[in-house]
Structure formats: structure tokens, C-alpha cells
């Protein structure tokens, strides 16, 4: 009998599985051992730093300043005390302390908005209204001045709500612009418009976002007529919108291109006219197709909002780095970075899993 592979004995077979997946060749076995050793050492080191030798709270001195000397002692691991101490600042930056329920509520609204948009049930025209409505409510909550809410000017906004606003408003405003640019690029009968759209997309994509943020904060004030001042956050937001629109335009264009020509021809044959055809037949289908790459692009922009730190805007990342610049906490940068990383990862990973799930579903349904 020349048996080569193992005959499976029963369904759950850890030994057999290990032999097939971890030790199937000499180099594989060696690699498994090396990796297991490395993982165990790294994990153990992390557990010792982060949990066993960690300090969870520090006493507050007589003058109200936390005594962080215990964190600097030798052999001490992570000083998690920095998180509860600084969390309000990291999340909300300079927003007035007693009004911080407002940005917190905004964050919850954004999360609800993403959850609703992810649900297939809401994929219809009304979703646009939901987005606009949410942004209006967020604006009212953040600015105040009405309904008895005290007014809070923009320069005091910061932290997580600002990151969410930059990303969400950026996407919301960029999307219609992106659709127009994508349509313009495919307009065979309007060569000047097509050229304009190509120039726009290629120039924007040619330079990094930082360059555009610098340009916005430096040059937008120059663009304004006399006496009109432009707020830095607004300049950055406009730059993000224009930047996002260029990338989204390419995604939408890919969707338009992958739609079979027969759809457009059938619509033409029915005499629908250009805008009706786009609105009723082409765009609904094309946009559905590109939702996975759209979500991936949004993940990228969510991360890119952290760049506004460089032009001095207090997003989540800058709030975090400013928190550890505070003298008592200067050694605790890694703890705060870890905290920030977890927040970003939570958002991005959720979106990434969602988009992968969507892609798998689209592939499956397309193959039938």
C-alpha cells in the first residue's frame, strides 16, 4: 500500500490538523517552533509590561497635581493611570468641560449613522437625507447658540468628534462632487469638460494630502475677499473634501465602466434623456457595485484626518500627543498611542470587515 497522505480518522482531529498545517515539512516545523517561541516571548513581555507590572492609578498630590513619580520607578511597566486622567482631553480637547456631553452625543450619532448606512435596508434615496439630517443635528449640537445651548466656537472643537466630523462631512460633501467629476470624465461629447475633470483628478492625486493641507491653510486666506477671514478648520475641511472627491471620482468611474453598455443603451432606447438615465438606471447600479472600494477609501480618509495635526488642528491624534506633552505624563506616550491605536483600529477594522463581507457577497451573487 503506497499511502501518501493521512486518511482522516474523525472530523475534529487536532493532531492531524497540526501535522498537516504546522509540521508538514522540515522547514515548516522549524518555522513553527521559531514562531511559537517568538510569539510567546513577545506576548509574555507585553503582558508583563501592560498588566503585571503596570500601575493603574496614581495618588493626587496636595496641590491637585497627580504624583507620577511612581510611574518612573524602575521595573514598572505601563502607567495606565494616564488614560482615565487624560481621557476627557484626548477625546474632546478644548471643548468646555461641562458641555462635553454634546460632542459625546455627536460621536454616538456618527456611529449610529455608519451602522444605519451599512444596513442594506437603508440603501435608497432617503439615505442621503439621513446623512444631511445627521450632519445638521451634529452642527447644532457642536455650535450651540440655539435651543438654550451655549455657543461654542469652532476653534474649541477637537478630539474624536472633530476627527469624525472631518471624515464624515468630507465624504458627504465629496461624494456628489465625485459623481459629477466621474460623469464629466466619461462625457465623450464634451471634450473640454472631460479635460477639466482629468486635470482636476490627476493634479490632486499627484500631490500628497499634506501638501494640499498646507496649501489650504496658507492660500485659502489669500483667496478670500477683503475683510473675510477663513477659519483653519474650514480650510482643512475644504481641502479634505476636494482631495477625497478626486479619489472617489476614480472609484465611481470604475463602477460606471464596469456596468454593461446594454444598460445605457436600453435607457436611451426608452428615450429617458441623460440626467434621468443617470439618476434612475445607471447611478443606482454603479454605486451599488462600488460600495466595497468606497468603504475602503473612507477607511483611508478616516486615517488621513490625522494629518490635520500638522497644520495645527486639534484632531484626536493631536489631542493625544498634546496630552502626553504635559510634564507629569511625558514618559507615558506609548500608553496613549496604544489607546489611540485601539480607537482608530476599532473604527477601521469594523469598516474593513464590513467591506470584505460585502465583496464576498457581491462575488457570490455575480457568479450566479
Amino acid at each position: 500500500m503506497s499511502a501518501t497522505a493521512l486518511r482522516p480518522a474523525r472530523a475534529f482531529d487536532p493532531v492531524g490538523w497540526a501535522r498537516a498545517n504546522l509540521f508538514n515539512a522540515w522547514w515548516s516545523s522549524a518555522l513553527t517552533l521559531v514562531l511559537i517561541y517568538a510569539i510567546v516571548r513577545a506576548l509574555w513581555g507585553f503582558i508583563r509590561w501592560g498588566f503585571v507590572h503596570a500601575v493603574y492609578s496614581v495618588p493626587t498630590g496636595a496641590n491637585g497635581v497627580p504624583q507620577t513619580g511612581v510611574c518612573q520607578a524602575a521595573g514598572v511597566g505601563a502607567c495606565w493611570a494616564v488614560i482615565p486622567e487624560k481621557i476627557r482631553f484626548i477625546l474632546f480637547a478644548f471643548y468646555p468641560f461641562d458641555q462635553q456631553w454634546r460632542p459625546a452625543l455627536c460621536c454616538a450619532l456618527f456611529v449610529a449613522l455608519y451602522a444605519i448606512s451599512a444596513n442594506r435596508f437603508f440603501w435608497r434615496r432617503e439615505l442621503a437625507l439621513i446623512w444631511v439630517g445627521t450632519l445638521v443635528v451634529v452642527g447644532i449640537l457642536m455650535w450651540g447658540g440655539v435651543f438654550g445651548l451655549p455657543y461654542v466656537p469652532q476653534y474649541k472643537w477637537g478630539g474624536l468628534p472633530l476627527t469624525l466630523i472631518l471624515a464624515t462631512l468630507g465624504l458627504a460633501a465629496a461624494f456628489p462632487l465625485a459623481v459629477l467629476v466621474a460623469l464629466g470624465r466619461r462625457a465623450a461629447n464634451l471634450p473640454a469638460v472631460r479635460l477639466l475633470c482629468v486635470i482636476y483628478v490627476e493634479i490632486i492625486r499627484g500631490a500628497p494630502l499634506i501638501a494640499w493641507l498646507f496649501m489650504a491653510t496658507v492660500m485659502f486666506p489669500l483667496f478670500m475677499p477683503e475683510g473675510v477671514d477663513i477659519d483653519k478648520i474650514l480650510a482643512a475641511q475644504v481641502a479634505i473634501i476636494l482631495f477625497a472627491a478626486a479619489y472617489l471620482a476614480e472609484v465611481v468611474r470604475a463602477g460606471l465602466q464596469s456596468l454593461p453598455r446594454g444598460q445605457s443603451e436600453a435607457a436611451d432606447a426608452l428615450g429617458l434623456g441623460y440626467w434621468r438615465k443617470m439618476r434612475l438606471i445607471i447611478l443606482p447600479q454603479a454605486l451599488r457595485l462600488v460600495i466595497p472600494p468606497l468603504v475602503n477609501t473612507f477607511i483611508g480618509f478616516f486615517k488621513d484626518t490625522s494629518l490635520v495635526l500638522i497644520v495645527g488642528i486639534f484632531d484626536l491624534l493631536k489631542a493625544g500627543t498634546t496630552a502626553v506633552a504635559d510634564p507629569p505624563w511625558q514618559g507615558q506616550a506609548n500608553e496613549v498611542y496604544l489607546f489611540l491605536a485601539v480607537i482608530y483600529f476599532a473604527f477601521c477594522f469594523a469598516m474593513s470587515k464590513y467591506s470584505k463581507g460585502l465583496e464576498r457577497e457581491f462575488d457570490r451573487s455575480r457568479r450566479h
Partner: protein
Amino acid sequence: MSETALAERQAAHTIGEPIILLDKVNKWYGQMHVLRDVSLSIAERERVVVCGPSGSGKSTMIRCINRLEKHQGGRIVVDGTELTDDTRALDKIRSEVGMVFQSFNLFPHLTILQNCTLAPIWVRKMPKAEAEELAMSYLRRVKIPEQAHKYPGQLSGGQQQRVAIARALCMRPRIMLFDEPTSALDPEMIKEVLDTMIELAESGMTMVCVTHEMGFARQVADRVVFMDRGEIVESGPPHQLFEHPATDRLRLFLSQILRGH
């Protein structure tokens, strides 16, 4: 073809020694038992057609013969050499066994001629000019010599499959395996490929062919093997299997296949 002509032709065709031997071959995919105690002996110059419903294991069995799939139980002996994990022996066996795939599997970045000369140059160490002459002779045999310098993407499905047959023949194999060669073709192209295979059979090549084309089986096969659910159910000359099926399973299969014939 008339019964007498068929009988005459089969008398003229002498069958040699066993060249493929499957002895109680078993194979599992995970928990699924896809080949159950399959035993088959194929002689030189014999033409065998394997048929059966999908999932019967016929493709798996034929792919075990040139070890594209590994069997877990039993023995397979090809041209005197037993199939094991010995890669050098395996390469040698594979150069004697030609295979034609359902999805052609031509190399898209090479011309037709290069597709055919690649293996003779690298395995049989033939000089390029000699390999090209050999390839052109086979391309002429499958009747598409003029496409030699085109790329596979520029040919129709039927032409591509004929190139695939020529490519396999360029290694001058002793055995040719066909894994549903016409299943991916448009109906009007099936005939040209079947004609090529018939011509090949008439020239004395040992052939094992998995196919649904019963007309081809009737015309060319010395033996038809019917598989179902991983085992060989019936085996015998085509007219016996098709006219007098012995088992219900074969009767059911024939009624499904030959509906409308």
C-alpha cells in the same frame, strides 16, 4: 457507423499489454470518499471512455493517473512505474503521459508555436529548430498550422483545444488523457475537436477519455467504463453498455444523457 464496419475496425485494432494499472485505489477529500476501491487495467493502444454523472469521481480518477491528484490507498502503476512521491520518477512518467484539460490551459503569454515547443526544449532537451519542426508537424495534423505565430487569446475555443492536443502530442506520449475536452466548447466547435481525437485514436494512441459525448464513445472506444459515486459500476464494449445496461444506475444515467437522441 454500421455494425459490421465497427466490428471490422475493432478486429484490425490489436490491443497490447497493460500500460495503466489501478489497483483498489482509494481517495478522500477531507471526509468525502471520492474514489472507492477503484480497480482498472488499461492496455496499450486501448481506447477507454469513462462516463458518469457529475461527482462520480471520473475526473479525479484520471487526474490520479498523472498524479495531479494524490491517491491515499491502493496502487497506481503507469508504464511499469508505480506512482509515489518521488518527483524525478514522476516527471519522467508525466513526459510519457499527455493530458488535455477541459479549460485548455494554454500559456497566454506565449505564441502557439512556443506553447508546443516549450516542453520538448526543456524536458527532452531538443534543439529549437528541431522542436519547431516537430510542433509544426503536429499543428498540421490538428489542421491549424497557420495559427502558429498567434497568441492563444486570438484563437477560438475549438482552435485552442486543438492546440492543446498538439502541445500534448509534441512530447510523443505513450498515453493521452482527456478530461472532458469538449465540455467548455460552444456546440459548433465540438465536432472539430472530436474529429481530431478520432483521428488520433485511429492512429493507435492509448487514450483514456472522460466525456459525455456518447457518439464519440460509440465510434472509437474499445471499452466504456461507467462510474458513479466513486466506484466503477459497469465496464464493457460500448454497444453492450449502451444497448444492454446491466444496472439501474447506468440505465438512469443513460436516460438522462441520451434524452432526445
